[in-house]
């Protein structure tokens, strides 16, 4: 693509981002393994209204996948329960909330430590929160045992090269 074409595409992207600023998406799915991919792809398409690079979109997909996988693997040991994924834009960033109404986390600080896992499955590496932190600009976790967990993550385009966020 020539320079003029690239500039035009950028201009359209900025215009699209402006138009998308009020856009919102709410996704409700049962905590089945097939829905990790569905949720991360839906959020990636939603977020693509902002001028994210492809690697940044991939990072966002990993972060969403970790949050949703936590719901699938840990929130509902008795059988599938509700997962709600809300996406919106705020000040040039995408904000994604992943919520469940399951087991909850007793000690959030401990859960966020690298390699911490409650699972007895030896194949669990306990890096979910590590990747959520690594690939987003901000991560909030609100949880209450027996009542559920809400993970809120925020990511802006080029945040690292601009030195913002994190």
């Amino acid at each position: 693509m020539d320079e003029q074409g690239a500039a035009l595409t950028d201009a359209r992207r900025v215009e699209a981002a402006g138009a998308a600023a009020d856009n919102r998406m709410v996704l409700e799915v049962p905590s089945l393994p097939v829905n990790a991919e569905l949720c991360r792809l839906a959020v990636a398409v939603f977020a693509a209204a902002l001028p994210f690079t492809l690697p940044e979109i991939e990072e966002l997909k990993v972060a969403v996948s970790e949050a949703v996988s936590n719901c699938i693997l840990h929130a509902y040991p008795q059988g599938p329960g509700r997962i709600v994924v809300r996406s919106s834009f705020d000040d040039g960033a995408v904000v994604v909330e992943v919520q469940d109404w399951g087991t909850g986390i007793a000690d959030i600080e401990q859960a966020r430590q690298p390699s911490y896992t409650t699972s007895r499955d030896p194949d669990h590496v306990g890096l979910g929160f590590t990747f959520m932190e690594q690939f987003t600009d901000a991560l909030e976790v609100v949880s209450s045992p027996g009542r559920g967990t809400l993970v809120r993550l925020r990511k802006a385009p080029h945040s690292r090269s601009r030195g913002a966020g994190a």
Partner: protein
Amino acid sequence: MQLEREITKEALVVRASGELDVRTSPEFREVVDQWLLSTDRRRLILNLTKVQFLDSTGLGAILGRLRKAQELGREMALIPPSGVARTLVDTSALSRVMSVYRSERLALGEEAETSHG
């Protein structure tokens, strides 16, 4: 996710493509373990070059195959995916517990060097 295998003189080579996550990890685990048990090759070479998506659940499944290989007295080598998935492999320090190669050819070359030298 798709899996294929090739059995060389000394290695079981497993090539994975697609997405390695909470949905596909159980199948990955089951198939690779079955292949490991059905051959006596002393090395498992796991080629993830064509894996397009990886998260911590997928990493756990990879690490679990190392454990399985070790249980059976085998060695495991990894050819990691590229892009963000590669960052995950680096962060998890998988390279500290298994040999990581840039290509299948290099991983197999190492095999030739070891067997002849």
